[in-house]
């Protein structure tokens, strides 16, 4: 991995945040159906102040995931979130049939 790629890599960012003493949550797309914009395995990492890096949907559900992540950081209990990607978004990515994603949110440590 080159230096530029490392700067943008959310799992390296998560480790950096952890070493800096921050609380970190990791959200991961675990399944997709239809025209989901990000493939399974994509990550979004969130710190306790709501800062985030990466993406699980290309922008449509990130704010909801960040809000749920705050809850996960407090309780320490992982959560499975399900989203139907809004029709408009699905249309923008080139398919009008909509898509569904499941996102697993867990606390680091």
């Amino acid at each position, binding site marked *: 991995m080159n230096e530029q790629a490392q700067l943008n890599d959310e799992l390296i960012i998560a480790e950096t945040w952890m070493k800096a003493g921050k609380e970190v949550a990791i959200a991961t797309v*675990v399944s997709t159906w239809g025209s989901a914009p990000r493939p399974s395995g994509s990550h979004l990492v969130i710190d306790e102040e709501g800062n985030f890096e990466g993406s699980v949907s290309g922008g449509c559900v990130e704010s909801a995931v960040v809000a749920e992540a705050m809850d996960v950081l407090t309780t320490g209990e992982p959560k499975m979130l399900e989203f139907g990607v809004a029709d408009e978004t699905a249309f923008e990515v080139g398919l009008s049939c909509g898509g569904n994603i499941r996102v697993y949110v867990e606390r680091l440590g």
Partner: protein
Amino acid sequence: MDPLVLKKLNVARNDRKACVLVTNLDDGRDRLVLEGHMVEGELGEAITKVLLTGKSNTVQIGKAEFFLNAYLPPPRIVVIGAVHISQAMAPIAKMAGYDLEVIDPRSAFATQERFEGTPVYPDWSEDVLSQKPLDAYCALAAVTHDPKIDDFPVAEALRHNCFYVGALGSRKTHGKRVERLLADGITQDQIDRIKAPIGLDIGAASPQEIAVAVMAEIIDAFHNRGLG
């Protein structure tokens, strides 16, 4: 996620080692499985599948649901020789999503002008590959047909178990190359992995057609590679 697992995962990715992060979605426990350290049973079979395809997915085993997240190093194509064939390979590789770099100690050939947007090293591969070693997720194509330039990287690619090793040259040229490689300590099994004549047999004649044949052979080798 276990912080130690995250650290191991980042080390593996930085070292270009393929691995799968296995998360039990019922209890949240996770572990990292590196290629070459395989797991028994149904879960092991599912892990092997995602390592080969690179497609992460969930799998139901008994009562538990697991998420298998595959992290494969991006395949890297190293071409020895800044010639017509490699000039045509570079854009094909880019379109197909493979990183490609060119090494040629003949600085008149290895110029950035001839390879816009592609990393070009006007150095001996002995020097370049000691800084950026080959690995199992690299393909090496040697297309200068000059033994002084091609022999070392071909031997190096075999020693590092590159998923593809191809070398340009007629059967006669290759015959002589085999003799030199054997004398250099390369085994017959390793030699049998060399694709020579290089490229799928599609009757390619021009450098551009040979580039298509070589890229197709590399893609085929990648999708049919074995696991370490």
